């Protein structure tokens, strides 16, 4: 009996010891979608026996309210996702600087794991210039997506210049008048995105010079040229005025239904290039390729403004900073990247990242992705928009398209609005 009791006691002690080694990390995020986050977590847990991750996933707007509150209240949190916006400054006092954590617990310094431009943007979001967040990747605008099957039917090539684009549109209108040549939302903010993309083609760094108050002006020759260019695209009917009443969803729908040959949006729509993404979202397109916006000026170069999206951080209150750092390295720069990179929502910030096999249905789609990636990882300017001013700029452009309001008047008006103090750019 005594031996039996001793045996039971020994077993209990062994189980207790094993349980004491198990660690549960509290993970807070709003993105990616649950199925993708679960895949990431499963992969990390499989690679780290004894580590469990408890997921706290909520919708973006709710996350903006709850995470900062939970952080300041000292709730148990080990890894938190941070929105790459003013949220960084809001929560940075509760976060650990990452370089030191990676030195102590990572496989390499963080500067050698993630792209330099992504880390520069991450540092710029904190008022003290410290690196508190590790971004998953970058996205930007504007990109163009093409229904490759329709292009083949119409004998079209990817347009690379304004003349190519004009010929592209003319061919579609002539041979298939039932189709919209280029579908995109006519929302004011998106017309502003297009105009800034055009400006960056001829004057890389223009937007940053205005955004960060380093001498750029809205009533400058650089912006005036871009403004005239977009109004000219409508005047010459390369862009159709009939798209001005399309909202975001409707423009996408037209492309997905095969009623538009091309679709213009940000690179967050790059999932169209992915065969698994199309299948999962019941999109019947079979072959999609992409490119940057065709170059509108002689001597200019393709450009996409980009910025980091979805970043991860370690709260100061974490009791498992070593494992938290390992998780962040796993999801941003390690094997975990393969769990989400096939969504193509962002181009991974991981140095030398590749997309898993089977994502692209053609070599042309892969080449498109490589083209967009290259543009995103070497942006002329940050896509760090002032959204209330963006709406005003877009409205000015629409007024010029609809009513012929002179460019000179509009750019002067926009500069006055920018200086007024009314918008989020003012201190």
């Amino acid at each position, binding site marked *: 009996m005594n031996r039996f009791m001793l045996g039971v006691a020994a077993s209990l002690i062994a189980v207790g010891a094993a349980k004491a080694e198990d660690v549960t990390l509290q993970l807070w995020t709003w993105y990616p979608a649950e199925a993708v986050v679960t895949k990431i977590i499963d992969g990390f847990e499989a690679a780290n026996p004894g580590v469990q991750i408890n997921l706290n996933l909520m919708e973006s707007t709710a996350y903006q309210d709850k995470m*900062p509150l939970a952080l300041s209240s000292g709730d148990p949190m080990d890894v938190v996702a941070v929105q790459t*916006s*003013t949220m960084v400054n809001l929560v940075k006092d509760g976060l650990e600087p990452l370089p030191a954590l990676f030195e102590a617990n990572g496989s390499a310094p963080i500067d050698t794991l993630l792209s330099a431009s992504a880390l520069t943007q991450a540092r710029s979001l904190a008022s003290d210039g410290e690196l508190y967040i590790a971004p998953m990747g970058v996205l930007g605008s504007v990109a163009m997506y093409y229904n490759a099957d329709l292009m083949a039917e119409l004998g079209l090539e990817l347009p690379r210049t304004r003349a190519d684009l004009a010929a592209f549109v003319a061919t579609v209108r002539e041979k298939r008048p039932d189709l919209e040549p280029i579908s995109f939302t006519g929302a004011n903010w998106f017309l502003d995105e297009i105009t800034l993309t055009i400006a960056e083609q001829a004057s890389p760094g223009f937007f940053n010079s205005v955004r960060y108050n380093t001498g750029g002006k809205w009533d400058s020759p650089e912006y005036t040229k871009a403004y005239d260019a977009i109004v000219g695209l409508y005047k010459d009917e390369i862009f159709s*005025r009939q798209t*001005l009443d*399309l909202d975001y969803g409707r423009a996408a729908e037209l492309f997905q239904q095969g009623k538009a040959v091309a679709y213009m949006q940000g690179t967050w729509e790059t999932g169209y290039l992915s065969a698994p993404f199309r299948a999962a979202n019941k999109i019947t397109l079979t072959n999609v390729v992409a490119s940057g916006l065709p170059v509108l000026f002689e001597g200019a170069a393709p450009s996409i403004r980009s910025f980091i999206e979805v970043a991860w951080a370690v709260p100061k209150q974490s009791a498992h900073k070593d494992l938290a750092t390992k998780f962040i390295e796993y999801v941003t720069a390690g094997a975990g990247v393969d769990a989400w990179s096939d969504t193509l929502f962002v181009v991974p910030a991981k140095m030398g990242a590749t997309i898993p096999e089977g994502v692209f249905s053609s070599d042309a789609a892969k080449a498109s992705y490589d083209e967009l990636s290259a543009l995103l990882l070497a942006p002329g300017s940050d896509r760090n928009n002032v959204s209330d001013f963006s709406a*005003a700029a877009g409205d000015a452009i*629409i007024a010029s398209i609809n009513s012929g309001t002179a460019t000179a008047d509009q750019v002067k008006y926009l500069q006055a609005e920018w200086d*007024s103090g009314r918008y989020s750019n*003012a201190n």
Partner: protein
Amino acid sequence: MTTKPPLITRASWADMAFFFGPLVIMYLVFYVFSLAFLLYTSLHRVNISLTGGRWVGFDNFRLLLTDGNFLTALANNLVFAAVAIGAGLTLGFFIAVTLSTGVRRKGLFYVAFLLPSLMPLALIASVFRVLLESRFGALNETLRAVGLEGLAMGWLIEPTLAYGVVVILFVYLIGLPVMYYTAAMSTINTSVIEAAVLDGAGTWQIMRQILFPLLRATHKTIIVSTVLMTFRAFDIVFFSTQGGPSGVTEITGTYVYRFSTSGNNIGYGSAAALLVMIISLVISIVQLFMSRSRT
């Protein structure tokens, strides 16, 4: 026989606290605190975190009152209100009177007029948006199909047409005035109408000189509720034209939304919301006083 004093004077403070307390607390939180918070943020430059705000005094209000877009939005509110009131007092009145005369299948007509007012405004506005789409919208596709391509226009693209669409949407919500008039007419003493008929009054005379004056209280209700409705009609504009093109159809609701959701300038959005609240309150009070002085 002795009469008991009213219950309210017999109730103790404890009873009153028990029954009225929850309501008072809700009022304090959702009205008084919200108002105080709005006032606080409107006097500061503050971002969406609502912390670290910088005192700017009345600067937000100064910027607001010097913004042509805000003044346009305010003017649009008043124009849409005037149109909705005009439609309610004329068309709504006429429909209510006609349906009360014993029209066959009037139940169907009541449903047809009331249904838009009872459905979510966002849904109605979204449906209109899809119907009126320039390229593939049902209206233009139908016009093209019957050979009337010349009439297939940019309903939501041309500023004047987009303005007309929003006006039509406000008029489309005629159901509530119809309902108010129908309810009010059920309380009218029919002997007044009978006497007028016996005296040889025609239909138009009865409507204009007897019914319309008798329903003065209902006119007041419709005017006040319609004015307040247009200041809250964010859904109608946001889901149809989004305030465009170029802010032509913007109302104060969509204007406040734009600045309050941008993230960095919540104080400015708060100032706009507060000013709109004050303006709509003043309009309501003026209208009530004017109505009272007439009676």
